[in-house]
């Protein structure tokens, strides 16, 4: 009798486990296969803005990618440190795409404007990429979230690591002469409907959030194919945003 009750209990237990397993696997399969949320086409009526951003790569590359980022955003730092090296090595250096970086300081990050200003001062000395990388690498040493009300010391350390002329850098940083440029970059993001960072514009598509390399490459490949098809037919390609 006891054995029979136990056997019945075991069968019910195994049945429930199988049901939970099926539901769990279905849920994961569904979330992995459904289209990424938030991806949308660029408004076809949107004309290229006047904001410059910072160009890296061949300006004539077939695909022109824009990145809107906030230097105080940890997700932007993760993308820059984990995914971007592959993007630069395999796509930018290969001439498949160029990337234009735009500042998009979020209201929730009070030190982001100073960081954008520091990077702009690095760009003045021809060291945009080195300074950008250092600002992200030392984010813990200047971001408000890690307790730094005044980011200056951390940003000075980043400038030093990037190999900048410190006298020139300090003068540039203190005068805040690049604030209008940062604001223009921010407004360019607003025009594209950006509300979170990082956000990418790849060809004719706005892609919010950090994306892994394989998904990034897929989007770049699609944009390259669209550009090739448009060139063949003589039509305007949807990959010219950011020009």
């Amino acid at each position, binding site marked *: 009798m006891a054995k029979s009750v136990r056997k019945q*209990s*075991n069968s*019910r*237990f*195994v049945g*429930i*486990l199988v049901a*939970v*397993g099926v*539901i*769990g*696997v279905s*849920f*994961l399969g569904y*979330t*992995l296969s459904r289209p*990424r*949320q*938030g991806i949308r086409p660029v408004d076809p009526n949107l004309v290229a803005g006047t904001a410059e951003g910072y160009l890296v790569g061949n300006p004539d590359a077939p695909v022109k990618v824009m990145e809107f980022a*906030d230097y105080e*955003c*940890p*997700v*932007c730092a*993760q993308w820059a440190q984990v995914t971007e090296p592959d993007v630069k090595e395999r796509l930018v250096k290969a001439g498949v795409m160029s990337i234009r970086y735009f500042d998009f300081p*979020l209201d*929730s*990050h009070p030190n982001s404007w100073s960081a954008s200003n520091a990077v702009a001062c690095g760009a003045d000395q021809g060291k945009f990429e080195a300074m950008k990388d250092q600002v992200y690498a030392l984010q*813990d040493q200047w971001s408000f*979230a890690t307790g730094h009300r005044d980011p200056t010391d951390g940003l000075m350390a980043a400038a030093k690591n990037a190999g900048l002329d410190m006298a020139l850098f300090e003068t540039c940083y203190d005068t805040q002469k690049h604030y209008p440029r940062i604001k223009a970059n921010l407004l360019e993001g607003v025009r594209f409907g950006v*509300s*979170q*960072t*990082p*956000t990418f514009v790849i060809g004719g598509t706005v892609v*919010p*959030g*950090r*994306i*892994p390399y394989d*998904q990034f490459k897929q989007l770049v490949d699609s944009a390259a194919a669209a550009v090739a098809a448009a060139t063949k037919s003589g039509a305007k390609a949807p990959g010219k945003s950011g020009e």
Partner: protein
Amino acid sequence: MNSRMVVAVIALGGVFLAAYLTLYHYGYVGSLACGTGGCEVVQASSYAKFIGLPVALWGAGYYASVFFVSVLGSVGPAADKRWPTPVLLALNGWGVLFSGYLTWAEVTRINALCRYCIASALMVVVLFGLSVLDHRARRAK
């Protein structure tokens, strides 16, 4: 169903929840970005990693261990053995401490709450409670 079986069922659910959060952490599901609040902020914080690995991945390992031990202690060769009880108590006791630390960090350090993390913390508390019940029931026998 005895309490070990219920532990196994909840732990299996936890494995899937933690797997989802791990995929989220690596950017394969959802949209990990700043400016959206909640889970995104928590997942982007320095507390989202522990010894170089995403906390969600540690969570998946924890739930898988609890699931494995509780299944062995329910229908496997150890169904009548005592040893799964202290193992489950230790695992879930550690789970409660670690979840408590993460919830404390969310409230006081990150200033954001992730609903999935809260759900996981509640599951861990239930798992620990069931482990205590299992311990009492076995001791009474």
